[in-house]
């Protein structure tokens, strides 16, 4: 059976790192082709959702952007929802990787937190469509994605909990079981609001406030403000 690849459609915003497969019988190993097609579908979904919103996106939109056939879509995903989950997971894996790497590169915890937040803001600013996908469209893409969204936010808690280490009894007395959850929730709500309003250009400017907000319970306000005002 022939694979019918839609060769006639051009995808102008095609991610450069995902090179087009030659059409037809190319003799490449099946696993490689499958993996590549999956990536293209994910990229295709991201583009389609950026254009049409989640509700307005159809499988036809996705396959057109991905330059694969409908049949190929169904080889990888059983529905638009499933494709969205994969796209969401891909974006979040990349975001987590960057935040984790930036955090790990610093020796001191306050600077590590600052670096992690900066990496998050950098990524969301550089990729406004992916920012919208992961923080706006994700909320209307069904309960599976919403649950992942909630987990992703909660996954930030350990980065702040690490700040409890070595603190005085006095500082620790000022922290509660929900402190980190509240800090993370507050931080994300600031970021999310601007993405909802398509104001990703305002994200970078949040860095000093976010650093001060998250570090103050551990360092006190003047020390936290100092770290917040540090320039790279």
């Amino acid at each position, binding site marked *: 059976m022939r694979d019918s690849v839609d060769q006639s459609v051009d995808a102008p915003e095609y991610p450069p790192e995902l090179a087009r497969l030659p059409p037809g019988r190319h003799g490449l190993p099946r696993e490689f082709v499958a993996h590549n097609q999956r990536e293209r579908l994910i990229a295709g979904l991201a583009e389609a959702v950026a254009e049409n919103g989640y509700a307005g996106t159809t499988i036809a939109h996705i396959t057109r952007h991905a330059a694969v056939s409908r049949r190929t879509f169904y080889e990888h995903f059983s529905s638009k929802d499933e494709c969205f989950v994969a796209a969401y997971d891909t974006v979040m894996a990349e975001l987590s990787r960057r935040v984790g790497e930036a955090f790990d590169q610093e020796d001191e915890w306050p600077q590590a937190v600052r670096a992690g937040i900066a990496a998050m803001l950098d990524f969301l600013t550089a990729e406004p469509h992916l920012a919208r996908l992961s923080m706006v469209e994700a909320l209307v893409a069904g309960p599976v994605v919403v649950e992942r969204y909630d987990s992703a936010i909660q996954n930030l808690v350990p980065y702040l909990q690490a700040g409890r280490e070595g603190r005085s009894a006095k500082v620790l007395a000022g922290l509660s079981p929900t402190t980190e959850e509240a800090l993370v*929730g507050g931080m994300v709500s600031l970021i999310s609001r601007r993405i909802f309003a398509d104001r990703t250009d305002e994200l970078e400017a949040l860095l000093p406030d976010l650093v001060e907000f998250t570090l103050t319970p551990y360092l006190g306000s003047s020390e936290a403000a100092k770290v917040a005002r540090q320039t790279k």
Partner: protein
Amino acid sequence: MTVADIVKRAGIARNTFYENFSSKEECFLAAQEFAMSAALERVVEAAGSFDEWPLRVRAGLGAFLGFVVEEPALARTCMVEALSAGPGAVRHYEESQQAFVSLFKLGRDVSPHGPELPATLEEALIGGVFWILYQRLTSSQLDTISELLPQLSEFALTPYLGAEGAREVAAL
């Protein structure tokens, strides 16, 4: 959810629905507004019975937590469903947070640290409180909410009053 679901639950005729609302979205917005008024009424009444700002915040927070516990369906409407119910609902959600932001901002006048506080502090504090309540609402942990009042009060008041000052009020 469809209009059919709504009318079935409400036990009214489809015609009656359309006499009142032109769409499911419009109905949702009305429900959200109703829920928001209900919450705000409680918060304002509770806060209004105190003169000092820290006590007003604690009382207001207490009233809001009470609302979430006693009216979880209304709370879910404003705080959970709203985010996936379209731009009108999201705008209402922002407005409701703004009401709390205004209440908290008054703390800058009574705080020795007032001028130094970050501009987005209130937004972040409210966002944090909402996030915690959202988590409890979506994981059906309503019974754990009331006991959060002291720690949430402390969290909200510390930037303005310092840790000890906040703890004193939270422990009342």
